[in-house]
């Protein structure tokens, strides 16, 4: 270490005298002042603020300023890329988020870990009027104590229809094509339940299986797929598909449709089965402004505002369909990718993995990532 010290000694020697000291301090103070400047200049007050912890690209950018204009509440944002990351953050002691959007199964886990504040339905008049009754008292929150549905969708796979002529329709075909013809051009989600669950349904098992032998079989499939992957990402696959660096991706229906707006992309839930999910608003424990959180939820349940959201995210709306007619672009309302027919949904399962199943999946995921 002696010579590092000598180097640092050199650095020390090159600054000299009080003038240098004063100049340095002044620069430091100036930088601090500079850091304060933009905030002072744009005069933001901390008074009414909503701190919204969310998935990326999950809110129409137009909605934030519209909400602020209507309610006077400004919105501060932070992002996560998986349910597990959200949980890790809250469990690790992060407090101060007012609103978050976990998937159903994670709502239950968060509630069990006492990381949620209760929802006050008396503050949600619009929601009570417009919500489709199918989305109340969902299995993961039977008393509607902690959550209000945001939207719903499916997990499947997508491909560039102009570059992949085979038109795969099953998970088996997805895996096989990935391992052969399109090796190096396929991505999968950075999500434990989605990736393992898809392998399970491909083999004919339940998405939520916690059988050791079934999970072992799924693991073998995944380890066989791993060397052929381009990337494991929940946020970049849309871009990669649009640019053509990836031709197939395991992902969510809304992202597929968003990509389809730019390039020809088909979305498929494999015939063997898949996941049907509902994402819900929750208020994390330690929220500073629960009123603002309720205000946001009530705001986006207005059919007009909800239509704006659906037109951006391409995920199914939990509002009553009749209320959306006339507000939502009929092309989207009628798009089976956004609002799949009931019979396709009957083949799908919501995530409902037990603690035992989660522990087994964690181990498999570690092996998968480290292969």
């Amino acid at each position, binding site marked *: 270490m002696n010579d590092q010290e000598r180097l640092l000694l050199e650095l020390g020697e*090159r600054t000299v005298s009080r003038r*240098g000291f004063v100049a340095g301090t002044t620069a430091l103070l100036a*930088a*601090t002042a500079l850091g304060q400047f*933009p905030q002072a200049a744009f005069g933001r007050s901390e008074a009414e603020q909503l701190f919204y912890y969310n998935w990326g690209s999950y809110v129409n950018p137009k909605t934030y300023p519209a909400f602020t204009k209507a309610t006077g509440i400004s919105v501060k944002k932070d992002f996560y890329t998986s349910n597990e990351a959200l949980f890790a*953050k809250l469990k690790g002691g*992060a407090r101060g988020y007012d609103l978050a959007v976990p998937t159903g199964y994670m709502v239950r886990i968060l509630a069990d870990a006492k990381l949620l504040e209760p929802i006050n339905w008396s503050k949600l008049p619009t929601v009570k009027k417009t919500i489709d009754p199918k989305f109340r008292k969902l299995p993961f929150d039977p008393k509607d104590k902690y959550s209000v549905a945001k939207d719903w969708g499916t997990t499947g796979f997508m491909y560039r229809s102009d570059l992949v002529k085979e038109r795969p329709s099953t998970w088996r075909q997805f895996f096989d094509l990935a391992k052969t013809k399109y090796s190096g051009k396929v991505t999968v989600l950075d999500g434990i339940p989605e990736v393992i669950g898809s392998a399970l349904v491909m083999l004919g098992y339940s998405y939520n299986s916690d059988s050791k032998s079934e999970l072992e079989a799924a693991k073998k499939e995944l380890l066989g797929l791993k060397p052929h992957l381009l990337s494991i990402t929940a946020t970049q696959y849309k871009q990669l598909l649009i640019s053509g660096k990836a031709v197939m991706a395991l992902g969510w229906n809304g992202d597929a449709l968003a990509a389809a707006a730019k390039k020809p992309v088909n979305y498929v839930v494999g015939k063997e089965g898949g996941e049907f999910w509902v994402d819900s608003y929750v208020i994390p424990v330690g929220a500073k402004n629960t009123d603002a959180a309720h205000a946001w939820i009530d705001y986006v349940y207005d059919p007009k505002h909800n239509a704006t959201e659906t037109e951006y995210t391409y995920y199914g709306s939990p509002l009553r369909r009749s209320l959306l007619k006339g507000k939502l672009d009929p092309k989207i309302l009628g798009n089976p990718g956004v609002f799949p027919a009931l019979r396709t949904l009957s083949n799908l399962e919501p995530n409902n993995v037990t603690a035992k199943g989660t522990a087994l999946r964690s181990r498999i995921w570690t092996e998968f990532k480290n292969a």
Partner: protein
Amino acid sequence: MARRLLGGFSALVFVFLYAPILVVVVYAFNGGRETLVWDGFSTKWFSAALHDSAVTDAFRNSILIAAGNAVIACVLGTMLALALPKMWKPVRIPLEALVTMTLVTPEIVFGISALIFFTEAGITLGLKTVLIAHVVFNASVVALVVRARFVGMAQDLEEASFDLGAGPLSTFRQVTLPRLAPAVLAGGLLAFTFSFDDFYTSFFVTGAGTSTLPLYIFSSLRFGVTPVVNATAAMILALTLASVGLAYVVLRRAGMSDTGTSA
């Protein structure tokens, strides 16, 4: 001959070092949203970055944490550096080893240990936990810099001061401290820099909404390289270049030479 080869090699190394920086700066002026598709020259992303409260908040947090921890690290580190050289050996050796460990422990290990600690101790994560964690390694940085200087300083001025009857405190204040000041300042600047650019430790001990600039960039870049982030990086680079340029000019005027040392 060797000289020319080495010079050529070094030029290549400089190209290597600056390639990503230039890419970032150039694409910060790209009018289009897609990074690799050039869509005309534009400065709109710079104004977008300055108006984005996520960017300015993160920048302000980074500056506050870096400045705060530089001050604390300087105090702790200087005191440590003064006491260390003459310490009783069985105490000094382990202490030096501890200082080395704080510098060399992989940040992921330090980050998670701090997270576990704050969780167990019930301390809410936030700006202060990031600052506390940063001081741990920055105090060591300052200590090393100041000690190197201190040990290399001849003590004749101090001895003269004592011989003239000055007490230890006034000797320190009037003789030693001014001579140490450059090293303390250098250590403080290093501490500021390490804190400002820190990622791993900050990632684990930051609470909700206390994003530092690196954390904001990370969360933003997960969605792909965005023009706003490029513009932010270009601005930080310009700011740093300006400060360094200013410091260099000031110090040159104050009589610094390239290879010599100063009193």
